[in-house]
């Protein structure tokens, strides 16, 4: 029915089948939209946040999706700036995933603020000292860049491309893409860092606070680095998942392995930096503030509590050292199971990092007569956080169906 819209030389399932498959995702989306409307109409009392937990699941989700969306800027950087031309076969998908991640972040932010209709005050009354202002500016600019990077892809739709104006526009945009990608990479480096600065500058919150290099706390650099390291892993993970769902090979192993290897080295170097940071934090920063680093974790009952120490080990060893070692060894990344495991753990690792940097500082007592706060998100918070996932799946499904996302698809799946 809609086959005229398909990219050239590829097979797609029938429209009813496609729509049927989307139904459950759309239901989840509607659930999320309902929760979102509740939050906007009734206010943030719909959440389980409170005055101690002002930053919670949503802020984590923002930091996490932007980190894992980092695949877009880093693969762009590799392709356009460092000339890793091989990556052109995955860059479209990286851009799409990045676009989804960034638009999701903006949406979640719009739900998260108490007065969304005033959120433009961040630009109008900008406080240049605030990391969040930096984030807002870079995030909007980079989102614009991602949109510009995504538009040519839409314009490449077979039917749209038949229109000469669009064809020419798309062609010209492609030509300028290197400039955008480079700009994007710069902006992205900056705001990934600013996001790291968000917790890092909180000198009233000993868990989050890091000492500064120039005006930026260490977390500024750690965040950029970890996003560059783990973002591509998420791109690989989603590509692999797409391959499983479509039951097709979409990107050549060579491309995946190249990206995986680069990621592996990035993760390894990152995790070394992170370990140094952790040791300095535990041995120097914390004692100056009057804390022993073990007090940063809730170990009243056991180390396996909600805010227990286990999370630190899981992040550094399970989600850092291990995936890094797998990905830097040829044997590791070429073993399908190990590759899957490594990219999944790396993705989880960066999410855990963002989680602890948001949750732990809110949960831990700073005043001696405070106590640990336990926070569990409300269903409205979960629904609005899952909403972008559903939205992402739908956007991927539509893009995959109608746009030439994977340049190697027709080659890898010759139609008979």
């Amino acid at each position, binding site marked *: 029915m809609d086959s005229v819209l398909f990219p050239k030389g590829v097979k797609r399932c029938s429209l009813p089948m496609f729509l049927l498959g989307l139904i459950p995702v759309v239901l989840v989306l509607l659930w999320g939209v309902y929760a979102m409307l509740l939050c906007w109409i009734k206010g943030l009392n719909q959440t389980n946040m409170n005055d101690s937990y002002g930053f919670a699941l949503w802020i984590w989700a923002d930091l996490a999706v932007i980190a894992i969306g980092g695949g877009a800027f880093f693969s762009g950087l590799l392709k356009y700036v460092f000339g890793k031309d091989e990556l052109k076969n995955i860059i479209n998908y990286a851009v799409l995933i990045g676009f989804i991640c960034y638009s999701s972040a903006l949406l979640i932010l719009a739900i998260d603020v108490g007065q969304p*209709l*005033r959120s*433009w*005050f961040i630009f109008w009354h900008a406080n240049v000292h605030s990391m969040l202002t930096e984030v807002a500016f870079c995030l909007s600019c980079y989102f614009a860049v991602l949109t510009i990077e995504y538009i040519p892809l839409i314009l490449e739709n077979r039917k749209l491309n038949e*229109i000469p*104006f669009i064809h020419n526009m798309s062609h010209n945009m492609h030509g300028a893409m290197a400039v955008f990608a480079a700009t994007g990479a710069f902006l992205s480096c900056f705001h990934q860092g600013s996001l790291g600065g968000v917790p890092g500058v909180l000198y009233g919150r000993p868990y989050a606070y890091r000492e500064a290099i120039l005006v930026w706390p260490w977390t500024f650099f750690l965040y950029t680095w970890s996003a560059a390291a783990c973002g591509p892993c998420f791109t690989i993970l989603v590509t692999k998942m797409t391959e499983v769902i479509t039951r097709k090979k979409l990107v050549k192993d060579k491309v995946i392995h190249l990206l995986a290897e680069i990621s592996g080295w990035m993760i390894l170097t990152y995790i070394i930096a992170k370990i140094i940071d952790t040791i300095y934090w535990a041995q120097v920063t914390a004692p100056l503030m009057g804390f022993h680093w073990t007090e940063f974790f809730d170990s009243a009952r056991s180390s396996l509590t909600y805010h227990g120490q286990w999370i630190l080990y899981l992040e550094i060893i399970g989600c850092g050292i291990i995936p890094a070692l797998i990905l830097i060894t040829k044997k590791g990344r070429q073993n399908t199971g190990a590759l899957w495991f490594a990219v999944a753990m790396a993705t989880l690792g960066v999410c855990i990092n963002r989680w602890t940097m948001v949750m732990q500082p809110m949960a831990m007592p700073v005043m001696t007569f405070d106590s640990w706060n336990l926070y569990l998100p409300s269903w409205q918070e979960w629904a609005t956080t899952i909403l972008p996932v559903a939205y992402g799946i739908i956007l991927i499904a539509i893009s995959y169906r109608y746009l030439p996302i994977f340049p190697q698809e027709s080659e890898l799946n010759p139609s008979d």
Partner: protein
Amino acid sequence: MKLDRRSFIAFGVGASAGVAVTPIPWKLMDDLSIWTQNWAWTPVPPDGEASYETSVCTLCPGGCGITVRKIDDRVVKIEGADGNPINDGGICVLGLSGPQLLYGPTRITSPMKKIKGELKPISWDQALSELAKKLGNMREDGKAGSLACISGSDQGTVPEIFARFLKAFGSQNFICEQSSADTYKITNQKMQGAYAAPEFDFANADYVLSFGSGLLDGWGSPVRMFQANSSWQNNNTTVVQVEPRLSNTAAKADQWIPIKPGSEADLALGMAHVIIKKSLYNNAAISRTTDFNAFKSLVLGKSLDEVQNVTGIEKKVIEKLAKDFINPKKRSVAVAGKGQGTTPGSIREIMAVQALNALAGSINRKGGVFTSRSADYINWPAIVMDRIATDGIRKKRIDEAGTGKFLGSRHLLNRLPKVINAAKGSPVEVMFIYGANPCYSMAGSKAVNKAIEKIPFVVSFSSYLDETAKKADLVLPNHTNLERYEDVYATSGINKAVIGLSRPVVQPLLNTMHSGDVIIKLANKIGGSVAKAFPWKSYKACLKQTLGNSWNPLMKNGFKTVVSSPVHSGRFNFAPLVKYSNSVVKAEGKGGENVTLILKDSIRLTNGYIGSTPYMMKTVSDKVLKTDKKKKMFYSRIEINPDTAKGLKLADGRYATITTSKGSAKVMVTCDEGIMPGVAALSRGLGHTAYDGYLKDKGVNVNNLIGPVEDPVTGLDAAWGIMAKLTRA
């Protein structure tokens, strides 16, 4: 024109760009943000001219001076009045939230009559005419004696008007709520020959020993006591608190001595043992007492080991305490009456503590305790009673106060429910309730409610739709404290007496009437000698005449200090204590209980006629009141020692059931090291079933769990706790 795809897109892009360069989207964005700053449902308080008025707070008996800040005719803030001899600028949570009581939705808006089980608004004319007719008929039927009145106080002109009305009408049954001050009065009558309230000279004391008195938990004139505490800090006065739990008073004291609840008298006698055995007492003072030898053999008859056993306090601590207290270089004073002193308590306990004061020579001495003069400015002409009144007054009081066994007691409100419930028909035909909410605030709520329901006709004078007003057949709402005149006589803890004048700072907002005026009107409607007993045109006229020369200074400053010389009292007599030394008041229990339940008082919660305000409820700790996880049901939290919790397989935050012989309730556990093992404490002031969502259905009313226990000597309520079973729920 045919619109092809290309031109459509071009149009779309062009239009978007076009709109973006116009001011429309930006203006819209701006308008929306301005809209969020002016939501119609967020009130904007109107501005106006600011003014201040001076008055006196009547929300508790403390008598603090207040300054009321107004914007035009709205009361927006209440502050403590600077220079007032009682509170000098200080104020408490209740006084501060006066505007919430004035403007709150729980006020009664007009007179109401119960029609088919529901309170319906009626006019004042109808209300007063019907009531006057009813009362007139009672007199004609020779039932004048079956009119009764429960009053929250017997101080000041308004309670006096009620008492006078009853007397002129022909009833003895003006029954006033009683407190530990009343037990003190009886004690002073028996031991010093003067029926007088105690007056503690805290400002000049060097050593204050409190037997569970919540001096900083709302005792006496609360703000005055807070200021006394500051002066103790400045003057290095030693304060020792003897109490089973670490109350705010204990927390601020220099020493906290946990004691098994109910054994305070035993500790006092044990201390007397030490003092007498070592002859440490003030010889000069003792030489002016009677029956010291009998007392001596009484206290020496009980070994310190026994005292240690009963009180749970080590011998050496008792010895040290006795020596510190009796230190001749210090002016020591001991005070008794638990918590806020709202329960009269055991006379044996108060006598034993007074005996300590006698040993230290602290009776009627600077820095000690005086017998204070009661208000003497109300001098109304004697009532000329008609035959009906004279006949009625011959009937004995329903509560049996002042007769037979309870000769020394003037009011025994706590006995009323028992008497009414035991009688065949209700001995009370018509009950007035003024300034009191017995259905909520009296121990043994179940019996109280039953008795109130049994009374054929209940008239409430409450300003608020409280538990008792809800049960009334006729409600005649009084003005609130900010709308009416009233005199306040305060003495507690000040060592001088202060008359305060509360006056209207706003015009009455609702269709209410001053209860003084109601009674005067009612008397006039009844006519005859009853009317003649009230020669005043209005309550204000009555008050003005009563205060005489004081009226003008009172209108100017809000207060007048009366330097009161102490009442002359006789030699201190130890004999009554010896006589009543076995009148121990025990906690009720059937056996099989595992904890002793005691009550805790807090300045942040009211527990009497006035309900706690929304602001006050906001200050209540989550260790006192907490909701379940769904934030639906509210639970009072029961405070127990972690060791007690362990033994009962309970833990902080767990639900438990507390059961006494009077009732049962589901509560939440609070573990606290500041309470004796084996003791459990619940806050008073929670568990209202009336008022609005800010106060209603929040926790348990402890009066459902505890019953009045008659003191064998005075007949007054002496319950200090009750045996209870605490189990996991």
